[in-house]
């Protein structure tokens, strides 16, 4: 028998605990089910994450925005290239194809590299990855910061032509960096979207890039986005890694990122209120 005076939705008095976590706690309940408002919040977050995976990168828009930036004194005009994964359906099921350049793209880069045989220090490679929205929203503001920071370095860093890769995975940067004879490959890639982070950009650095390297040879800076790791902070960490990689002539497990404070706990600030 139901008591008609009871509210339809029961709130949770402990929802104040949300100040300690982004977890979806204290959601309340309709019977034992999610209240409509919480159901729809979840559906929206999932829809945004799905769109990030499936909406194609708007390459024209990205190219136009990139051309507002400059490398040295020239506007940044990227080479747009493609992996061997023809479409998203193939891309999702065949990660191996997303790691290799399409033949036509490979020839283009080879030609480019032969036309200019000067060696470069760094190849910036923009890859759609698993989140087009991460690339669409965060690559340009990040690069604006990073290119300015790079300019301010005491030594000059020579840049290879910038590339934009469609249907690519992280490791495709090694093949591209190798073809462009760059000292290091710098991959900016859309990370697998989380429910509350559909626009997370990942940055991967490989020293001495060439096809076939494993993850152990790369350094990673993750969760670069306005609500995550700020662009200025990410740029500083990346510059540190670039300088260290250049000094040690390696990247990956042998190169420790000492700018990263290991977050072991926040217990100085927060306690376990359940037992205190």
């Amino acid at each position: 028998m139901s008591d008609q005076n009871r509210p339809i939705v029961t709130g949770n008095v402990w929802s104040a605990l949300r100040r300690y976590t982004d977890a979806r706690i204290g959601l309340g309940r309709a019977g034992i089910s999610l209240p409509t408002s919480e159901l729809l919040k979840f559906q929206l977050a999932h829809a945004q994450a799905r769109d990030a995976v499936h909406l194609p990168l708007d390459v024209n828009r990205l190219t136009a925005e990139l051309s507002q930036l400059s490398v040295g004194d020239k506007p940044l005009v990227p080479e747009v290239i493609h992996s061997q994964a023809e479409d998203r359906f193939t891309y999702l099921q065949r990660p191996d194809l997303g790691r290799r350049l399409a033949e036509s793209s490979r020839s283009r880069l080879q030609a480019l590299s032969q036309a200019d045989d000067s060696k470069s220090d760094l190849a910036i490679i923009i890859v759609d990855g698993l989140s087009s929205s991460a690339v669409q929203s965060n690559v340009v503001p990040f690069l604006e910061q990073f290119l300015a920071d790079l300019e301010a370095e005491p030594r000059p860093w020579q840049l290879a032509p910038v590339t934009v890769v469609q249907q690519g995975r992280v490791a495709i940067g090694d093949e591209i960096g190798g073809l462009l004879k760059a000292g290091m490959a710098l991959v900016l890639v859309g990370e697998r979207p989380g429910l509350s982070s559909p626009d997370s950009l990942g940055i991967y650095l490989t020293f001495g890039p060439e096809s076939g390297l494993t993850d152990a040879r790369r350094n990673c800076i993750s969760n670069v986005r306005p609500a995550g790791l700020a662009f200025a902070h990410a740029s500083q960490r990346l510059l540190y890694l670039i300088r260290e990689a250049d000094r040690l002539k390696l990247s990956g497990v042998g190169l420790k990122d000492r700018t990263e404070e290991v977050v072991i706990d926040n217990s100085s600030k927060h306690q376990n209120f359940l037992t205190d």
Partner: protein
Amino acid sequence: MNHKYSYMLGQRTWQFRDLADLMAKATPARSGDRLAGVIAESAEERVVAQMRLAELPLRTFLSEALIPYEKDEVTRLILDDHDAVAFQAIAHLTVGDFRNWLLSDHATPEALERLRPGLTPEMVAAVSKLMRNQDLILVSRKCHVHTAFRNTIGLPGHLSTRLQPNHPTDDVAGIAASILDGLLYGSGDAVIGINPATDNVSQAVKLMQLMDEVIRKYDIPTQSCVLTHVTNTLEAIEQGAPVDLVFQSIGGTEATNSSFGFNLANLQEARDAALSLNRGTVGQNVMYFETGQGSSLSADAHHGLDQQTCEARAYAVARKFEPLLVNTVVGFIGPEYLFDGKEIIRAGLEDHFCAKLLGVPMGCDICYTNHAEADQNDMDNLLTLLGVAGCTFIMGIPGSDDIMLNYQTTSFHDALYARRVLGLKPAPEFEAWLERMNIFEDVQTHSPNEALPHAFRGSLKGIAQEVRDE
């Protein structure tokens, strides 16, 4: 060409290279087998492979190892531990006969329990490939696997939950907030289990102490686990940490397990260490394992086998160490292994069936990532199907959203849904606690109390004060 595995259909003779090829081709379609290049090339070839597999005597699996005995300690474990006496009951059957037998009334819960040591993972994987989803459910439901530590897991008519209070920086208050949320929704009887964000021994010990204090203060009949590497847990035990369960991700080949950084001897050593602590009150099942189709291929350690057969072999590893809990993390690995809701649901039912038939206390992390073709509705379907099948436990996480691992699994609300529609109960000791603590006003209808239970009021008073002070 070895003609041993051929099949004539009409005018055409189909050839299968060997037993591994036959098994792979007979497997219901999934992206991981396509990625590995072992999938049937047509729908017809798949059914022909199933027809050939149905004719295969079960005893073939005792003489033809899919991965050589000399090369793989999991194969050695499977064959060395095989009980020929228990096998006698079905020794005369083919794989196809075995399906009939399992579905028949000969296969009572008691008969199935006696049979367990006579079964190998390959026999179980083979028969699952011939079975429809309803067959997998019907037989699973007849397999009763009970385990115990501070409560009793796996009794018929019960569905337990792992409370998974993960936090991206292991923030103590953040973890405590999710634990409280879960407990007040009746979650956590299988285990309170944290995936640490920072994976090292000192961090693991800190989290173990946190959970141990909560369990002792509120006298909760459950157990805790930090899902860190087995060697970390062993070190934590040596440091005197309060370890209830030892965790490890396991696979079905020696090479997979090497890529995870352990071997069978490590598991034995860790189990012995955990047993020496003698922390269980109603039982001494001290291990917790996770598995999942695709892990062997992902580690390039699959020896040309299909991913479901590799997965079933992992259950031989699990049962050797008498775990309290095992779960497949079915949709976590991504669409290159299980593409969509249909493949995830099929795999979840297969994994549960194979494990239960072998005597493993199988639960399921009913989950998906945002790049898989799946959504909450697919998870609702799998949850309901596994609830009917008698699944041992599922995950419980606030609002289905794991903010540390970035994937979606079942929520505290989902577990209550399953318990309500299917009439399932939490572990009996835990249910009595929910009642005693006034967390539920009615445990029969799974109705949480509207008022905050008395025991938790003090803790929250401090929080309310803090909020007011700001």
